[in-house]
């Protein structure tokens, strides 16, 4: 069975199937209304007792944050409107307690689900979970006791509710397989935090699996096998031990530097969007932040974030990175990214239009607010400012002049800030790459944004399926641009070049980028260990040879084939 691999790893164990059977409520007219009201009161009491226990357990096992959802469930059971309306329904319509609960729950779920608001839709799921519990209690239907699972099991379910994951015996649960859900569902998040494999969205796994069946969950490739034959079993046992060895090896690399066998060291750092992401960077051994996308500060808000709010976010990141460099990219909005409170004209070619730093020059106050916030936060760590969408040296000078204005203002206001903050640009427009030698004297660093650089240099929209095959980041044209930028930065004392596009975390590109002399690789945190492993298993001079070879090839296909052979020679397996 093929589904979505939502948490990596391989687990093999007996199936434990959670059956949430269809519950039928009693829809008859009822004479003894008082009896139904008493049943409702009993069900409320029982449900509250259960939730209090679940809440306590969740606080211990998952922490306050995760447990908060059960406190919210308890609030629903205490809600005068919810309970009041159920009582009214029972009295006015002479219906059973279970029927009343169902009607009122469905009504609220309907209201919340119809709202065009993610927050409200989540509340609908909570109310459904609570209402289901209340109905089961009113009918005396016992939940399957997931806490009593006492042998190693794979949980098979339609979907897992927060109540399910909170109560299950986590020592014995080795993996999840569910009918519905995707990478961002509750089940997926739980699986990753428990570090057990999960395959979701299998459609019929509850139907096709019985309690006690032997199940293989392969969260790497999103595959589930029920009652495998001996050959399949052997294959997966091998894959499982290989994966476990791989994970163990990567974990051992965490605190080691990204240094080649012959002593050439590079920085492996993380891309982040919010202060919360710093944790992942540190956990994976990242030694800095190579791209802090500040758009989220603006997009997750219904008004322009003020200087204070931005200052706090930047300060938080800088402090938690504890002196490691943090490259903060100024607002990159426009193109496909819009803000609800900033009116932008429709453009024929938004990707060639008023976006990023170009927009900031027009909305100068918005730009200055952000620069002031970054300058002030710089006092609390090692901040670097990076301007996106720079096409020529004049724009660099213009941006720096505005930065100087902000410094002057802060000086006059007697507010402390980082006087010597490092300034760099994102190289994503081909003209900037080609004139990197001209720009180099104006900046402290370059960071190559490969996603946009490819789009602009290759004139291809990779979201357009009819031309996306032309999106080839390892094609010699791009490699030559990358080389120009790196060389230009190294021609001037004390400057460096990083890369913060997807290519930086691509294991197939690592040897070439290393060989071209890239100083800093910035990627999603989870890619750091793998790239570090590659860098630690090679000589810098061999990587230089590989890069040279790549520059001499004619197509991306040839480059990929060559790199594949080299990785094999080094005996590096990629997962």
């Amino acid at each position, binding site marked *: 069975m093929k589904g979505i691999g939502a948490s990596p790893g391989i687990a093999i164990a007996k199936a434990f199937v959670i059956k949430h059977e269809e519950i039928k409520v009693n829809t008859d007219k009822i004479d003894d209304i008082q009896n139904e009201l008493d049943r409702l009161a009993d069900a409320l009491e029982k449900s509250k007792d259960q939730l209090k226990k679940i809440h306590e357990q969740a606080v211990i096992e998952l922490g306050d944050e995760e447990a908060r959802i059960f406190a919210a469930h308890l609030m629903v059971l205490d809600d005068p409107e*919810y309970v009041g309306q159920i009582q009214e329904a029972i009295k006015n319509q002479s219906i059973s307690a279970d029927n009343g609960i169902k009607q009122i729950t469905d009504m609220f779920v309907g209201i919340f689900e119809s709202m065009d608001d993610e927050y409200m839709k989540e509340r609908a799921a909570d*109310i459904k979970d609570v209402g289901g519990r209340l109905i089961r209690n009113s009918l005396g239907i016992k939940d399957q006791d997931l806490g009593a699972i006492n042998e190693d099991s794979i949980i098979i379910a339609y979907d897992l509710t927060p109540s399910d994951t909170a109560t299950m015996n986590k020592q014995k649960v080795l993996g999840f397989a569910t009918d519905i859900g995707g990478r961002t569902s509750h089940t997926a998040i739980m699986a990753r935090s428990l570090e057990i494999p999960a395959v979701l969205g299998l459609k019929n796994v509850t139907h096709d699996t019985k309690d006690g069946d032997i199940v293989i969950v392969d969260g790497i490739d999103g595959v589930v096998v029920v009652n495998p034959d001996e050959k399949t079993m052997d294959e997966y046992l091998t894959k499982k031990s290989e994966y476990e060895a791989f994970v163990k090896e990567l974990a051992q690399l965490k605190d080691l530097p990204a240094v080649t066998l012959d002593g050439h060291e590079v920085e492996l750092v993380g891309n982040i969007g919010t202060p919360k992401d710093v944790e992942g960077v540190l956990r994976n051994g990242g030694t800095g932040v190579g791209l802090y996308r500040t758009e989220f500060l603006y997009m997750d808000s219904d008004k322009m974030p003020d200087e204070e709010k931005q200052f706090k976010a930047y300060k938080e990141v800088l402090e938690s990175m504890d002196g490691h460099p943090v490259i903060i990219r100024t607002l990159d909005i426009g193109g496909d990214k819009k803000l609800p409170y900033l009116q932008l004209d429709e453009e024929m070619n938004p990707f060639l239009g008023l976006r990023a730093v170009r927009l900031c020059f027009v909305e100068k106050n918005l730009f200055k607010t952000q620069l002031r916030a970054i300058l002030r936060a710089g006092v609390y760590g090692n901040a670097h400012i990076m301007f996106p969408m720079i096409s020529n040296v004049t724009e660099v000078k213009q941006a720096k002049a505005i930065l100087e204005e902000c410094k002057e203002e802060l000086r006059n206001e007697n507010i402390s800030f980082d006087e010597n903050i490092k300034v760099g640009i994102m190289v994503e427009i081909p003209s900037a790459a080609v004139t990197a030698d001209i720009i180099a004297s104006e900046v402290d660093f370059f960071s190559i944004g490969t996603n946009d650089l490819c789009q602009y240099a290759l004139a291809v929209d990779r979201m357009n399926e009819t031309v996306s095959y032309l999106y080839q980041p390892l094609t010699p044209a791009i490699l030559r641009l990358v080389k120009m930028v790196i060389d230009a930065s190294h021609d001037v004392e004390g400057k460096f070049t990083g890369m913060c596009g997807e290519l930086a975390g691509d294991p197939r590109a690592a040897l070439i980028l290393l060989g071209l002399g890239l100083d800093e690789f910035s990627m999603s945190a989870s890619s750091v260990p793998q790239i570090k492993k590659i860098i630690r298993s090679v000589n810098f001079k061999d990587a230089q040879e590989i890069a040279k070879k790549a520059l001499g090839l004619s197509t991306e296909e040839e480059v990929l084939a060559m790199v594949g052979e080299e990785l094999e020679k080094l005996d590096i397996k990629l997962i």
Partner: protein
Amino acid sequence: MFSKEVTILNATGLHARPASMFVQEAGKYKSEINVIKDGKKINAKSIMGIMAGGISKDTVVTVEADGEDEEQAVNALVELIESKFGEE
């Protein structure tokens, strides 16, 4: 019975965090408290009622209370709405 009319000023309206702040504040008073929107009464102590009420920015509502502390209750809740729940 004591009541006051007030316009919702904060961008989110009585949703999410502002809704729970409002309900928590209402819960501090003994009086029966309702929010009236378009002639419909919503129990001010019910988080689900308030959130389901769809009370968005610029809506005009009446806060009314009946009980021993009705005046304090209405004044405190109106003040909370006027403070934009700490949003700007």
